């Protein structure tokens, strides 16, 4: 199970159950190491991924969800892009969900805004009934 080889191709992880949280962290860590990320950036990416995967487990209502990871080439830079998607009920108010302390699940409400602060690029698409798709990108420094 070589991380170097795995990072060459996009990888998909299903997010349906608690053990998948560990798989998401492992896959992101392997990709970050293979892409040459430093320890701090590895940790930030893995932590952001952990928050987003948990959101799917908590809020997608058991609907299908998953993660795609792939290496990306920018202009003269290398990075990783991770897409977290689910076919759950979607987010009613995306702007509110991106604010600190907003939670409908009794948590700290740091999942989305926290993950956003840990990566270089963050995009979220969601609407009620249409699922949610969060795309994060982190560039190697």
């Amino acid at each position, binding site marked *: 199970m070589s991380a170097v080889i795995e990072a060459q191709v996009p990888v998909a992880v299903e997010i349906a159950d*608690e053990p998948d949280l*560990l798989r998401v962290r492992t896959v992101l860590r392997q990709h970050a190491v293979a892409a040459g990320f430093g320890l*701090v950036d590895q*940790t*930030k990416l893995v932590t952001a991924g952990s*928050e987003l995967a948990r959101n799917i487990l908590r809020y997608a209502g058991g609907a299908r969800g998953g993660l795609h990871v792939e290496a990306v080439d920018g202009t003269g830079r290398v990075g990783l892009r991770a897409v977290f998607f689910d076919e759950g009920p979607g987010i009613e108010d995306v702007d509110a969900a991106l604010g600190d302390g907003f939670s409908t699940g009794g*948590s700290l409400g740091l999942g989305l805004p*926290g993950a956003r*602060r*840990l990566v270089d690029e963050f995009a979220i698409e969601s609407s009620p009934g249409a699922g949610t798709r969060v795309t994060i990108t982190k560039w190697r420094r």
Partner: protein
Amino acid sequence: MTPVVPIMRIGATVLISLQGDLDDATVVRIESAIMQEVSRTRTTGTLIDVSGLGMVDSFIARVIARMAAMTRLLGAETVIVGIQPAVAITLVEMGVTMADLNTALNAEQGMEMLRRLTEGGHVEATAAHAAG
């Protein structure tokens, strides 16, 4: 693949070392095991070593903070030791400051802090290396 959590006790101090990659159910299970141990017999201090955690997300951080608050209700002070620098940077950037927690660099300093905390001395909660 259930990680074993050895809970040790030295006198009135309970020591726990968190290690590996913990899913949410495991974190909660550890929490209740610690609470049981603290309430089982006289405990004045709890030392939680997190040096074996390569990642602490907002859920794990929240449970650790909750454990510290609950053990205080049971009459014990808690000190968190060994937060990895990369984890500390990540937590602060994420907005999880853990400002209410007693933290120390390593187990030795943590034990010293517990000793002062539980012998009536006043010690400011320090987050020195986590905040730096």
